[in-house]
């Protein structure tokens, strides 16, 4: 199995409060993460390369020059797009749904916490976030990365098997008259 290098992971922090942004930035940097801090969900989506354009197709494609983000940590209560809304947008995007998302909130509301976890959030941090909470981030990033590698491996294996199975299919069609008869009868039913 490939070993994940101890390179710096990049965390996108989202919070509308300037003070809390400074705080989470310091917490993350002290824990050796690279940080980008933004003040809203829509800015976060821009960084992630997702367009808010409603006219585009549901499966939005990231821009070619987007930065790689390994984890998103977002405040829950924000004007406009809440942390929950942002979570749903990320998990609803085919290109971004494997990025782990952590939600922060100053209020301990069990129904809110459950809703976020059910919505795909990896964790829920109660504010004020502590230095010790930062340790809980790396496992989620590593899990995501190994999933990514597993998917890549599976895709490569699939490609190989589909190439050889196509070859077999071609041979089968020549040798199986029965199959041809079935196809003809199907065509007749179209009349």
């Amino acid at each position, binding site marked *: 199995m490939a070993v994940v290098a101890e390179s710096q992971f990049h965390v996108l922090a989202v919070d509308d409060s300037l*003070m*809390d942004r400074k*705080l989470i930035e*310091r917490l993350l940097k002290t824990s050796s993460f690279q940080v980008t801090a933004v003040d809203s969900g829509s800015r976060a989506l821009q960084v992630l390369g997702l367009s808010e354009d409603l006219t585009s197709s549901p499966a939005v494609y990231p821009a070619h020059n987007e930065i790689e983000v390994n984890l998103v940590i977002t405040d829950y209560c924000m004007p406009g797009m809440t942390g929950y809304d942002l979570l749903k947008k990320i998990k609803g995007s085919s290109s971004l749904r494997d990025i782990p998302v952590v939600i922060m909130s100053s209020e301990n509301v069990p129904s809110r916490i459950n809703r976020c976890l059910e919505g795909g959030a990896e964790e829920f941090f109660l504010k004020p976030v502590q230095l010790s909470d930062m340790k809980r981030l790396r496992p989620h990033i590593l899990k995501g990365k190994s999933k990514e590698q597993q998917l890549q491996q599976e895709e490569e294996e699939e490609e190989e098997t589909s190439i050889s199975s196509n070859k077999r299919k071609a041979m089968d069609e020549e040798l199986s008259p029965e199959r041809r008869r079935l196809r003809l009868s199907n065509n007749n039913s179209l009349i």
Partner: protein
Amino acid sequence: MSLMALREQLNMLLNSMYIEGLLDQQFQQLQMLQDASSPGFVAEVITLFCEDAERILTELTKLVDQAVVDFQKVDAYVHQLKGSSSSVGAQNVKLACIQFRQFCEENNKVGCLNALNVVKHHYYLLRNKFDTMLQLEQRIQAYDSKQQN
């Protein structure tokens, strides 16, 4: 004043703030996050908190003064102030905000007026001590940089 005397003053100030409930453990977290790579971190957070708090208190004063109070709006601001006071470790301010929110929930105008005064009282007490703290820190840092030269 000597460097040692300055440091002692700062420690005494901090201790009194913890004992009197102006500050809680969260402030210690902030102190832990300050290091050589970010020497001005605590000062920066304190400054941001004070700017934020004063902005909110100004808005709250206007809102609670209205003939008909928009309690939802008031609550939203108090929630913000509660959040930032919690993040900076401003315990008494935070507790006063929690009380304030109770009155908002009850749509109690008189309660809100009183609660706002309590919040202001605690905030300005804290502001005063923060000012002294930052001044002491500046003087201490001036010593350190002199020694390095």
